[in-house]
């Protein structure tokens, strides 16, 4: 896939989380990519040059590439448990 598009997507996520503080934004960006990206997209950006990414996105990708499985950082990534009805993310 077009690596520039993946970089742009990662940076966009990081930029929009920046307001919650650097460390939290790194975690939230990692959590977001972990929950929503397909394995081939993840594999490609893990193999990419970190310096091509913004600081927050680069650190987030580094965490994931090293096998991190971050806990949910926003309620959008806290999905329903098997028997739960509360959450929905209907588009």
């Amino acid at each position, binding site marked *: 896939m077009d690596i520039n598009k993946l970089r742009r997507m990662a940076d966009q996520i990081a930029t929009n989380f920046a*307001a919650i503080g650097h460390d939290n934004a790194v975690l939230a960006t990692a959590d*977001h990519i972990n929950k929503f990206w397909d394995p*081939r997209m993840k594999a490609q950006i893990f193999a990419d040059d970190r310096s091509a990414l913004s600081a927050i996105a680069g650190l987030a990708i580094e965490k994931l590439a090293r096998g991190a499985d971050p806990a949910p950082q926003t309620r959008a990534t806290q999905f*329903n448990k*098997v028997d739960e009805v509360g*959450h929905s993310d*209907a588009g």
Partner: protein
Amino acid sequence: MGFERQKDFGTPEVKSDETVTLTIDGREITVPAGTSVMRAAAESGGDIPKLCATDNVKSFGSCRLCLVEIEGARGTPASCTTPAAQGMVVKTQTPRLQKLRKGVMELYISDHPLDCLTCSANNDCELQDQAANVGLRDVRYGYEGANHLSKKADTSNPYFTFDPSKCIVCSRCVRACDEVQGTFALTVDGRGFASMISAGQTTDDFLSSECVSCGACVQACPTATLQEKSVKEIGTPERAVVTTCAYCGVGCTFRAEMRGEQLVRMVPWKDGKANHGHSCVKGRFAWGYANHKDRITKPMIRENISDPWQEVSWEEAIQFSADKITAIKAEHGARALGGITSSRCTNEETFLVQKLIRAGFGANNVDTCARVCHSPTGYGLSTTFGTSAGTQDFDSAMDTDVFLVIGANPTDAHPVFGSRIKKRLRQGAKMIVVDPRRIDLVKSPHIEAAHHLPLQPGTNVAVLTSIAHVIVTEGLAAEDFIRERCDWDEYQDWARFVADEKHSPEFLEAVTKVPAHIVREAARLFATGGNGAIYYGLGVTEHSQGSSTVMAIANLAMVTGNIGRSGVGVNPLRGQNNVQGACDMGSFPHELPGYRHIAGQEVRELFENDWGVILDPEPGLRIPNMLDAAVDGSFKAIYIQGEDILQSDPDTHHVSAGLAAMDCVIVHDLFLNETANYAHVFLPGSTFLEKEGTFTNAERRIQPVRKVMEPANGYEDWEVTQLLANAIGCDWTYTHASQILDEIARLTPTFAGVNWARVTSGEPLQWPVNDKAPQGSPIMHVDGFVRGKGKFVVTEYVPTDEKTGPRFPLLLTTGRILSQYNVGAQTRRTGNNIWHSEDVLEIHPTDAENRGLADGSFARLASRAGETTLRVQVTDRVAPGVVYTTFHHPDTQANVVTTDNSDWATNCPEYKVTAVQVTPSNGPSEWQEEYADLTAMARRIANEPGREELEPAE
């Protein structure tokens, strides 16, 4: 049910805590105070003769047919305008009344053609019924005097005629247009004998008038004066089946009135919970596509998209598809396969498609059109409220004091709800519109918004944050509500953020282009004006900060305490009929039905045990990523049910490159749509009239879809999906959609209490329907948020990368128009085309003049993504610097121009902001010419195997 008109109670239902008890013809009845004597009589089984009264509009008291005698009262008052009173004793049938009524009816009939036997309304005419009801036997006045019998009919509207020779000037049509639709297109012109119903000015006919063809006047007409042309052509219906409209997310219910297997007309169902007997031009009239000659009813295959289509049997088409899927899976793995579910299809069909992709194909590469419309709603409301469902039912609007409509145009895109909003505005509610265009809710007959914030496209977050700034810094926040319902510490963090001077309306005015004083006044009104409700559409979500805007909206609702009761709330207006249902049914690549992430082991085990398969634990690709992966060579085959991504998705060049790169594209649709130009298999689909199942509307209301005729292609859509599934090795044995619904209920907690019997019983069901809420949940978050406390989220404004400059100095924004629906595949094949036969570009007079463009001239619209040509419409509805067009016509293809920018959280495309240039043009763009050639080539169908002659599909 057999055919009978819906009961008409004569005057509208009254809601009151007080009741009165009266006696009518010896029957005692208790009704809410304020109920008319006419309605009380009807509710107790009586039937007072009437002509000018109908229960969709207020009483009028003009026809003098509904006279009654009331003990102790003088004269014979009209029962429609007389409120029932405690202890009242009423007689509705006496010799005196009969004489009076007969006299009135005699006058009506003396100026009415006596052609009942050949009239198209014979046996479906209230005038005829009431003449019989009052016992009219002859007319003493003769028919030779002055009359209106030679008046010519107005047949200009494509769907109904206006025949003044049959008009009794009861004004029901005028009042329906005013009170129900709110367009005020009709009037009674002239006085006395010269009184005539008129649409607009003397020179106007129905088509050229302001009439929006909603059909309210036709439904209200008690004679054949305003009548559907289809009734004249086919005859009156013999049976009626209640079903749900397949257009927008309002979810109107209709009586499909049938003659044999032929649909005669769609009449809005008065008991419909979403529409209360109202309709729009699409649902009411634009169903002709179901039998259009373009419809494909035989399966077709081809090895290469340059080949002509070959019509084949279902068995051959399914086997051809299965062989390709199986071979690709063997060579490239399951993750090379995927599919798109349809928000136009039923819950059951959508559920089955995602099951096919996950359990049959073995991948999670499933997505749906919500990706390109309301996916940011999912992200944004989940983050703030814990669940993304719209918080209200539509009826809630009638308790709203201040509407805040952002990036939505309900009178065009959700017209029946738009009429409800207008009705509430006429009752005195206030309106704030945040939109780059001057939509009809800003100003139209009898309504005017208190404030219009004509913001620069792409600055939603800045405007909403500046509104929040005013509320917080002027001490207007609902702190009691926030302390009780929200996380106070998070609120304080957020309040500090928005209170910063850089978020003030004055500071941001340079970016938003909205005068600061208007923002301040709007903020004050929303915070202090009573019940405040926010309604929004794709003008919010289809931006690079769509998700942030949704969170900013949720923040605004919480800071003003507008959550958890009738009249308030946050309400995403869903575009398609079943977009809510498609999402509920697990159409997103990262989650199974019921919004449970695919990575959850317990969740997967539930489905694995039920389906007897092992599921991939990793999220799949979203639609734009599927196309990226196809270009890259790792995504090879797709099954697309009821979706035309080539026309609807952004950056057409990219979509076509992705489709062209795939080895197998299976399109399952009614027509050879634009996507089918790149397909190898075409599986004919069935219309909503040909299937059973359920749709879930924007209020989470689960409603039945009923089969009123056999599928022209031979199968309901879920049956086709089952054929494909079984051909690749599944062992599915569904024989009715209700069995799929049972499976949904078994596996999806929000649907736990839902079944076919309850859905078809007419019981209102708004999910969640479960043990805690057995009757469903019309309003969400009543006593507290569904999950924990309300969460204020800081939303920093991040300008879009899409910026104007010397090459592309204007901003394009796109949207819908009333008469057309999305890609137009349905509405373009109906009479609706008369109102909008081509996409046009709205441009401000200053911008037009600078470019030498006059109204109606052709222009080239170009962006960095591509270019097309279309006519311009010079109008000040758009601000200088902004242009607007629709995307209903493939030969214009607005999405050639839109870019691949998308929302940061969900990849929802940034349709609403594209930097463009507009210049005069004298011919189609290169792309348009090439695409016309491609379409002609791609739609060839071989007549018979072995013959060389080919014919186009259309």
